[in-house]
């Protein structure tokens, strides 16, 4: 860092970006006002990130793009050779390859799904880039945009809100059950702006859906800071699954911000599969669960290189009979660090909560820490936690090897098996890729 970026400089840069975004998106004034409100909040909002200092954050804002990533990627051939080789080894489909290369930007994938989704729109399913939803459904967006976050909570929420771009708006109308998983990509690669997609999910009464976002292969990002925000609303009896697949390049810091309100008898299964070796990933999702509602936060994590991961998760069980599970399984390799600190707070009678954390340490330089938090404000809540941190057991390895599998193959099998129970809801096509990535990681080939 050669020059000092002051908060004033940063604000001026953000302001320029707001201007550009509001113009580019042909944004209604109310949205631009929200951005400006966030800009005002940015200066005073606290910043407490264990990895990115305030000074660094200001630098990211001044210079969001990293160096060394090809400026113009027009075909798969423009990718760095090591990345191409990896994609080949993974057997990634052409559509996904394009996405990874930044060729399939949001509008492109929009086209792929367009005809199909038009049919479903008539039945009550709306899937749109968030910018477009702002124009087409301003009332619904206004009702749900930034309602689960305060703009001045932190510099990161303020910055995200000021410059958000990209993301998905998913609205499932009352009673509609979407029988297939919706797989959507939502990165905008061509932009020099920060990566700050905003996702809104509105599941009306008695709906069902499964949204899968991201992809299993590493993505060639041009930005070193990724700030996505997800706000999800589950009305009475809605059942939804959100599966996030991510494989970050090693220079990326991600700060996912996810919050959800889970209504009476509603269910939300929130699964995140992290396969890469980013720089750091820090998230503390929050869930408010009403009567007989249920939330499950599943974290599957493959920590490589010097990846620093800190996974929180707070569940407020506010209605009678509400339940929550926070479960994670981490395979921690190389010099990576994984910390889990879920909190479940029982605020109503007959609520149930469970935190579990399993970690497989693959290296002496890897670190795992877990801090489960259980808070009960009632006398009949059932709250529990369990944690197990260990290495691959010698007996298991010997058993598999005594059947003729070499050490690498036996280790791959054990590591895949360790994660397998958590991958039960992942569609087969992704499962195959995930397993391949685990195999490559175990044999040091990522």
């Amino acid at each position, binding site marked *: 860092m050669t020059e000092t970026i002051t908060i004033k400089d940063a604000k001026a840069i953000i302001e320029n970006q707001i201007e550009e975004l509001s113009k580019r998106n042909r944004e209604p004034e109310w949205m631009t006002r929200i951005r400006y409100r966030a800009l005002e909040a940015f200066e005073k909002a606290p910043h407490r990130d264990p990895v990115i200092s305030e000074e660094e954050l200001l630098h990211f804002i001044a210079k969001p793009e990293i160096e060394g990533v090809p400026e113009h990627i027009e075909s798969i051939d423009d990718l760095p050779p090591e990345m191409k080789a990896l994609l080949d080894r993974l057997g990634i489909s052409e559509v996904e390859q394009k996405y990874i290369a930044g060729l399939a930007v949001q509008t492109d994938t929009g086209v792929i799904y367009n005809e199909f989704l038009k049919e479903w729109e008539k039945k009550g399913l709306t899937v749109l880039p968030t910018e477009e939803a702002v124009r087409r459904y301003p009332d619904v967006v206004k009702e749900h945009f930034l309602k689960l976050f305060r703009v001045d909570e932190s510099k990161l929420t303020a910055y995200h809100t000021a410059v958000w771009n990209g993301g998905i708006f998913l609205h499932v109308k009352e009673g509609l059950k979407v029988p297939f998983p919706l797989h959507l990509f939502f990165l905008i690669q061509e932009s020099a702006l920060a990566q700050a997609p905003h996702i809104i999910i509105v599941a009306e009464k008695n709906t069902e859906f499964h949204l899968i976002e991201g992809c299993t292969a590493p993505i060639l990002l041009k930005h070193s800071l990724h700030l996505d925000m997800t706000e999800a609303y589950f009305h009475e009896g809605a059942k939804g699954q959100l599966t996030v697949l991510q494989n970050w390049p090693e220079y990326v810091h991600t700060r996912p911000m996810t919050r959800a309100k889970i209504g009476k008898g509603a269910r939300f299964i929130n699964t995140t599969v992290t396969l890469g070796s980013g720089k750091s990933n820090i998230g503390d999702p929050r869930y408010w669960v009403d009567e007989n509602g249920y939330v499950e936060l599943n974290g599957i994590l493959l920590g490589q290189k010097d990846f620093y991961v800190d996974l929180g998760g707070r569940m407020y069980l506010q209605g009678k009979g509400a339940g929550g599970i926070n479960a994670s399984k981490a395979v921690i390799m190389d010099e990576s660090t994984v910390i889990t600190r879920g909190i479940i707070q029982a605020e109503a009678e007959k609520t149930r909560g469970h935190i579990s954390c399993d970690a497989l340490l693959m290296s002496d330089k890897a670190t795992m820490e877990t801090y489960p938090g259980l808070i009960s404000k009632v006398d009949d809540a059932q709250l529990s936690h369990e944690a197990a941190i260990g290495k691959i*057991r*010698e*007996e*298991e390895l*010997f*058993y*598999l*090897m*005594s*059947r*003729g*599998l*070499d*050490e690498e*193959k*036996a280790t791959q*099998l*054990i590591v*895949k*098996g*360790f*994660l*397998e*129970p958590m991958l039960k809801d992942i569609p087969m096509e992704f499962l195959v890729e995930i397993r391949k990535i685990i195999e490559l990681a175990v044999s040091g080939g990522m």
Partner: protein
Amino acid sequence: MLKVENLHVNVEDKDILRGVDLEINEGEFHVVMGPNGSGKSTLALTVAGHPRYEVTRGRITFDGEDITELGPDERAKKGILLAFQVPPEVEGVKIIEFLQQVLVELKGLDPVEAYDLIVKKAGELWFKEEDLHRYVNVGFSGGERKRLELLQAVLIGPKLLILDEPDSGVDVDSLSVISRKIEELHRKGTAILLITHYGRILEHIDKGDIRVHVMKDGRIVRTGGGELVERIDREGFGGIFEEVGE
């Protein structure tokens, strides 16, 4: 085929085997008996190549080749298979996927061929097709674990099958099917090294056909025919140990 010469083995700074000699030729049936702690399992695990069992003296050869320093996977590829006394649970690994991979690696089958073979043979050891989608040994009863070990032996068809107490912790019905499968493998030419406390497992085996070794304190102190099994069943090891001056 297998030749164990003056084998000394150290486990966690304790000398467990103190000079074992044993030779097993193609298709032979050998039984090792002895009290707890006499070194029977150590012998089995050392021949299979467990990394924690350190050979301090002597050597193991197989088909004329010194395998003392080989890893367990390489020994398996040469035709040695150990059926474990307590097979470990392997969380998240489905039996079918594991066995398919083993047959692909070890026997060069293609996965579809392997699948059909596994399902067919599984029935003979009382596993239903859906059982094969359970995780390896996870939540298995003693009998199920031992039957799964035998299923692997039947599928792999090793040159030498080492069975470490295939009869311990097993229900009567499982014991009978396991005993019959051991006999069948032997009949088809697999050499057997069977470790046991009781003669019951040998009910389907021709006693005139077997060699029996009695171990004590890390050594084989007596070798004889099938009649030794009946004698040990009847009167324990005391008499034999007295005779050999131990």
